[in-house]
């Protein structure tokens, strides 16, 4: 029997033995340590039964022995500390706790990012509150929040009406609920100019581009900047019309503006909200506008009216007129397809459709309109998608505009002599714009490999100009001007430049401060800029973030990126503050996603800087896409009632529509064909309508399917007994998020 006075010695002996056993046993989980303690206790108990008692030693001797015995196992266990932290889900726990505590502290507001350049919708959660007002940041008017019920309030913010923050950085939002004011931390963002798509005038003496973030139309000519003028909210694309006028589509205004050469807006054509891409017919009499809501609008330029509209069943992306003003080729992003649309008076119809394995990243019309060139990351004449693994092969495909059949192929992503790793690719990655020059050659901007290249489809290998050194990293636009000069745009550089035919810089227009200025005056903006470049930058596998997350959005595909389960590509806009990330919640910080590029895709083609940190800074600066502007407040309120009654907020909690929790897959989807150990991150439901695939494996093709088809066990909310009307209201509510 062990005397009580020796109890501490016994306890110490058990602990030391447990440490040794844990070290020998390779414990990397709490269970291993508990087991080691249990075995040590068992041995000690057996010894006690046989009359063993620890020897009497002085305190100093005991401490010395304990230190000697413990040193090695502690070192061994310490070496496995990272594995323990990872296996027990403690990696990045601080980030998760910070995000979750912020969302749990009511009144809570989501998102915590206030962007100065676009309308945003915020949700405030104040249970029991009847009336709420919010001052999002200094410089912004106090806004009345619209009560939706169940303590949820909606705040529609438009910087043009309500004022914008003056500078980027941390700020305090003031939330007043029933007269009681509370402050919450937010981040304000005043983005820099981002010139994206370049369009040439018919005579190629000028080019135009827009900066959506700073509401500008920019004209350039062979000498450099020719004009910089303010237009409407969120100018997303532009194209030349007759007489040097330029048409500008707007993302956050319902109009296409016609801007004369002097910079004056001479006409506005009402086309609808969400102008995304724009094309002019060969005779410059018609405009085709791709709207984010899923419509393509055809407008008569001279009359200034809309002639026809057509719903295409997904987001219309790049588009071009084909052989005449009555035929149009549209690239649909989700589900990916090329569509041939004919316009006859007020009637437009899809007359041909070709499903694609990956959405079109760029599209250009060949002279005459008999074919278009598209840039894609995957192509096969076999319609079976490449589901086996994350398949990205950048390529250009020339397609007949009548039959939509492929005519020619050019694989662009390739290896260059500067790569020494087997299979390393560092050329021709992420083509984002194509210009068909009068001689038939293609001028292509490769954002992934920082180059502008002249290619001849079916001809010899082209020549490339490395543009990163010219301050034109991740170029989005490139085209040939009349005198042989090349115009190049770089959104992340905030710069448009004119290059000599040799590739030497002739002139540049800096629409945003340069890197050196930002380093001095706004280092955070520089971090975001570097992060944006990293997002577009190719890895040695020829894959960039951009390859699947198109400018931050989803490509609408499912990929196998880890051998576990096919997962739909996520839209990364607005994900900040919702740790953990990825479908399985395996990454606690946004910056950790860099590890995917660094390991799975064999690292970046150039070693440089702290990409994890800068990538996080940039992704965290991407605001949530605004919900569709069409509102039906009554249906949305009824939908919220259904949402609450079905128990959805238990996991999709207000205001972020996620509680950041993780669930074993079969707890929610008992019939899912996934390994039982898989746990799922609860996704936010905000920005939901930008998806075309739903649920963790993308099996649901519509929100209705989520409830009607893929919830047979009623475990993903109680939706089995909902009426058609309730489902419709629920969907309307979800679409308003």
């Amino acid at each position: 029997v062990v005397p009580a006075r020796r109890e501490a010695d016994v306890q110490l002996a058990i602990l030391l033995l447990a440490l040794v056993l844990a070290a020998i046993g390779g414990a990397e989980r709490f269970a291993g340590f508990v087991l080691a303690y249990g075995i040590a206790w068992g041995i000690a108990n057996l010894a006690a039964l046989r009359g063993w008692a620890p020897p009497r030693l002085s305190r100093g001797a005991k401490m010395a022995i304990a230190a000697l015995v413990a040193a090695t196992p502690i070192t061994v266990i310490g070496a496995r500390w990272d594995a323990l932290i990872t296996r027990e889900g403690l990696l990045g726990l601080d980030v998760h706790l910070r995000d979750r505590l912020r969302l749990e502290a009511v009144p809570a507001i989501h998102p915590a990012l206030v962007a100065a350049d676009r309308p945003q919708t915020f949700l405030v959660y104040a249970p029991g509150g009847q009336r709420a007002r919010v001052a999002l940041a200094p410089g912004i008017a106090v806004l009345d929040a619209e009560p939706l019920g169940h303590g949820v309030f909606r705040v529609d913010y438009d910087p043009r009406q309500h004022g914008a923050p003056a500078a980027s950085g941390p700020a305090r939002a003031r939330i007043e609920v029933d007269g009681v004011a509370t402050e919450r931390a937010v981040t304000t963002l005043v983005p820099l100019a981002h010139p994206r798509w370049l369009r040439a005038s018919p005579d190629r003496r000028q080019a135009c581009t827009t900066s959506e973030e700073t509401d500008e139309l920019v004209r350039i000519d062979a000498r450099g900047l020719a004009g910089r003028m303010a237009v409407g909210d969120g100018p997303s694309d532009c194209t030349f019309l007759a007489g040097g006028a330029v048409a500008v589509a707007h993302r956050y205004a319902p109009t296409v503006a016609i801007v004369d050469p002097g910079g004056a807006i001479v006409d506005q054509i009402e086309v609808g909200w969400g102008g995304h891409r724009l094309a002019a017919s060969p005779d410059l009499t018609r405009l085709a506008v791709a709207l984010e809501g899923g419509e393509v609008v055809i407008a008569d330029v001279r009359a200034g009216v809309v002639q026809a509209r057509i719903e295409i069943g997904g987001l219309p992306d790049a588009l071009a007129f084909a052989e005449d003003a009555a035929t149009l080729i549209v690239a649909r992003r989700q589900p990916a397809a090329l569509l041939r649309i004919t316009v006859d008076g007020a009637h437009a119809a899809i007359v041909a459709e070709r499903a694609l394995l990956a959405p079109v990243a760029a599209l250009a019309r060949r002279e005459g309109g008999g074919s278009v060139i598209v840039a894609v990351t995957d192509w096969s004449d076999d319609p079976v998608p490449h589901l086996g693994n994350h398949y990205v092969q950048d390529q250009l495909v020339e397609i007949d505009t009548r039959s939509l059949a492929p005519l020619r192929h050019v694989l662009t992503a390739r290896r260059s002599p500067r790569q020494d790793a087997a299979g390393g690719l560092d050329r021709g990655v992420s083509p984002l714009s194509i210009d068909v020059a009068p001689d038939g050659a293609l001028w292509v901007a490769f954002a992934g490999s920082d180059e502008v290249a002249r290619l001849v489809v079916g001809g010899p290998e082209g020549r490339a100009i490395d543009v990163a050194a010219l301050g034109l990293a991740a170029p989005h636009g490139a085209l040939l001007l009349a005198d042989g000069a090349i115009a190049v745009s770089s959104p992340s550089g905030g710069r448009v430049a004119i290059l000599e035919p040799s590739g030497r810089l002739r002139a540049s227009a800096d629409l945003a401060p340069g890197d050196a200025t930002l380093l001095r005056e706004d280092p955070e903006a520089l971090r975001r800029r570097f992060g944006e470049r990293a997002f577009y930058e190719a890895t040695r596998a020829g894959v960039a973030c951009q390859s699947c997350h198109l400018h931050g959005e989803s490509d609408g595909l499912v990929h196998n990126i880890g051998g576990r389960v096919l997962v739909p590509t996520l839209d990364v806009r607005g994900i900040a503050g919702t740790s953990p990330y990825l479908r399985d919640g395996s990454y606690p910080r946004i910056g950790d996603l860099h590890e995917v590029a660094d390991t799975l895709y064999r690292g970046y083609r150039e070693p440089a800087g702290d990409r994890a940190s800068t990538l996080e800074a940039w992704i965290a600066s991407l605001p949530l896409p605004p919900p569709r502007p069409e509102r039906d407040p009554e249906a949305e309120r009824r939908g919220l009632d259904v949402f609450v009654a079905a128990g959805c907020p238990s996991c999709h909690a207000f205001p972020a529509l996620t509680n950041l929790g993780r669930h074993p897959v079969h707890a929610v989807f008992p019939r899912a064909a996934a390994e039982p150990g898989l746990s799922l991150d609860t996704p936010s439901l905000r920005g939901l309508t930008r998806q075309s695939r739903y649920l963790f494996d993308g099996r649901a093709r519509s929100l209705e399917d989520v409830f009607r088809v893929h919830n047979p066990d009623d475990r993903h909310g109680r939706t089995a007994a909902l009426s058609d009307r309730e489902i419709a209201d629920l969907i309307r509510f979800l679409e308003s998020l």
Partner: protein
Amino acid sequence: VSEDAITLLRASGWTAILLLAGALAASPIARAFTAAGWRAAAARLPRIRRGLGIASASAGLVHAGVALALYLGDRPWAALAAVAWLRSGALALALLVSLLATSFPGFVRAARIRLWKPLHRLAYAAAALAVHHVLLSPWAPRAWALALAAAFGALLLLRLVPRKARAERREDPEGDASRGDRTVAES
């Protein structure tokens, strides 16, 4: 997962954890009572501690039963093995059940347990695992989880500091003589 199931899970889980916190608080409270001169009240606390411990393990069993029946679905064991917060919850319960079994003198004698206290100190390991469980579980408010972690941490400190003082006193031979020898199982 129905709201009723979530309510049951929350209620049973927090009951188990708060009872465990109560059991662990009993000894420091008893010492505080003794220091304040409330010896009779202090003398009752060990029995209350035992009751709280038994109730905690029982509530934990209810919590696990509800989780198995209403939350974890048809293939719970793989999820329990693979998902960290479920694993730590299961492990905490396994420890509490072990301590529950060894809270009955008959079982202790039958199992020939001599080192009862080192075994029952696993209650602190169970508390740590329970904190890990609630820190990562989807429905537990994180502020509560952090408060719980702070409470368990404080209880552990309160437990360690007087131990050290007593250990120092035991170095004194007179102290040993005055207390007499007791078995660990009896103390």
